[in-house]
């Protein structure tokens, strides 16, 4: 008997805004000029924050820090597509997502300064705390999406993780589960090409991460992760699908980690300057700026104002983070269980 083709698949890729600032008008999501400026200013704020955090780490004023430099469009574009009712499950590199969703930047500094309270979001801001064990939060997102479905809520759940994360069993289990139950989940992989020193090619023999969706029977797409319009549009569509009961989507944001993995890393040990330089020309802010300039949305003066605004927001965050009083050592007892155990009471007495 001859071999049959049971099915065949394609892998989608979305690009809207190129490096020179030209947008494919047919693909442009519908966003107002005001929103375009908001996108830009938010990316600027995220970058300003990020550079400051790196400086503060160098000065020993916060601890190890994971930079988002280069990934601003992936983070801001996806976060700004969300609605207040949606839930976010971040990994450890989502500082831009936090900022875009309105978590006060001083708290992000507080967290990286080694204080759990920095992760406490205000009521109504549905961001789950930072997850450091890679990909272990993907099943949480699937579970939360199941709860959304169970309650019949008008919401979706978004998980963020890296290219390295797609190698973990939990990635597979989470996506498989979400696909099986057609859950309202969106899985955003920021493929920044590196997992510390390990290049993307060493994570999988697959040509893209997006195509992994095929095996789970869910929607998958690769987008130019340095193109905020593409990221925004793909996220919007995925959220819509999720909320309409059409199941989960895996979005691969094809981007680049411009910084070291964290401040504890030295990327020059394992990657070339040429590679980094190549990605400099693909900068997400630069291309949006060029686009805005063509549309008369950008002037030198506007740039100065926007920079000043970002700087003062970050100045304020820094000041506020440093004036937060130290956590009470007893808090480590207070939050381990709902109430103190007999043993903890004794330990506190001896404290």
């Amino acid at each position, binding site marked *: 008997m001859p071999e049959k083709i049971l099915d065949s698949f394609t892998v989608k890729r979305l690009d809207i805004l190129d490096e020179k600032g030209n947008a494919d008008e047919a693909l442009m999501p519908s966003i107002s000029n005001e929103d375009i400026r908001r996108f830009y200013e938010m990316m600027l704020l995220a970058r300003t924050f990020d550079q400051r955090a790196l400086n503060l780490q160098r000065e020993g004023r916060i601890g190890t820090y994971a930079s988002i430099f280069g990934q601003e469009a992936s983070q801001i574009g996806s976060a700004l597509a969300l609605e207040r009712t949606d839930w976010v499950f971040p990994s450890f590199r989502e500082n831009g997502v936090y900022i875009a969703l309105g978590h006060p930047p001083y708290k992000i500094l507080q967290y990286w300064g080694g204080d759990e309270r920095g992760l406490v979001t205000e009521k109504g801001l549905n961001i789950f705390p930072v997850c450091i064990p890679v990909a272990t939060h993907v099943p949480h997102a699937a579970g939360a999406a199941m709860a959304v479905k169970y309650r019949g809520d008008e919401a979706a759940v978004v998980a963020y993780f890296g290219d390295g994360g797609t190698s973990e069993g939990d990635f597979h289990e989470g996506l498989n589960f979400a696909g099986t139950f057609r859950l309202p989940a969106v899985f955003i992989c920021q493929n920044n090409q590196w997992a510390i020193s390990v290049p993307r090619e060493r994570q999988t023999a697959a040509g893209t991460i997006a195509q992994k969706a095929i095996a789970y029977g869910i929607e998958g797409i690769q987008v130019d992760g340095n193109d905020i319009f593409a990221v925004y549009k793909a996220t919007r569509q995925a959220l819509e699908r999720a909320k309409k009961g059409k199941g989960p989507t895996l979005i691969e944001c094809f981007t680049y980690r411009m910084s070291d993995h964290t401040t504890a890393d030295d990327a020059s040990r394992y990657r070339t300057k040429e590679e980094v330089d190549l990605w400099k020309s693909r900068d997400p802010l630069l291309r949006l700026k060029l686009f805005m300039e063509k549309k008369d949305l950008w002037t030198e003066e506007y740039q100065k104002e926007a920079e000043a605004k970002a700087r003062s927001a970050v100045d304020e965050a820094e000041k506020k983070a440093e004036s937060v009083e130290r956590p009470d050592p007893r808090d480590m*007892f207070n939050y381990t269980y709902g109430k103190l155990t007999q043993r903890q009471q004794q*330990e506190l007495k001896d404290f």
Partner: protein
Amino acid sequence: MPKLNMVQAINLALKEEMQRDKDVVVLGEDVGRDGGVFRITEGLLAQFGPDRVVDTPLAESVIVGASIGMAVYGLKPVAEVQFEGFIYPAVDQISNHASRIRSRSRGRHTVPLVIRTPYGVGIKAPEHHSESCEAIFCHMPGIKVVMPASPYYAKGLLISSIRDPDPVIFLESTRLYRLLREEVPEGEYTVPLEKARVVQEGKDVTIISWGFMLHRTLEAVEDIDAEVIDLMTLNPFDEETVYQSVKKTGRVVIVNEAPKTGSFGSEISASIAESAMLYLKGPILRVASCDVVLPLPKLEDYYAPTAERIKKAISEVMKY
């Protein structure tokens, strides 16, 4: 003789064993090109090539699971798990397979595997980078657990672990990596597993510790006639050395970095109570971390035993 820190000593052990035995391979996240996030495997890729020093995908279960397959086939893998806090995806492989394949196959197959992983407080890192979870692995018959406290012993113990026919979890204190240097001979020497060492002799009190906590202990005993034991291998532990000392001093303090409840110190305490109770002058005291989720850096210093707390426990037992 060169003075090396623990990073260099472990690196040297790996290098020498790989030179001596072509079956020894190293695998893990970032162990190749980057030389490991703590530089433990620095230079190994250049010297031994990518077939023997393997940068793996980011997946602990397969790092350990594949190592088991290699080991059963006859290789001697040394797997690195980047931090002990990230070993949990591999615990299924460790507990359900590495520990049991000898038994399951009635000795037909063995798993000569070493899993190296950094643990412990002291470097003020983000969440999950500072725990000390040795007790979990001590509760898996078939697994040996080794925790070196200095460069010399790290090298000798690692070589013994690699040559051991059974799986060994080799826990390295991040705080100790660069804390001290000592003379570490080049070339062949081993420190036997399952043997404790008496670091200093004394007659008033026995203090048992391992890993980084040994150094806090040594700080605490400066003006006390204490017998200090570095356990080195936790499971199986050297009962003879421990009981002998207890019989001599009649007082015991156990210092470990893990939270007190269910810590390995508890096992030692119970064993002493069973085997040497009648020699004791007073209660056995455990100095351990608080029974809490390990806090982020701002509160980290409140968590683990300090020399102060160890001293307090010693003066407590000295009342008897």
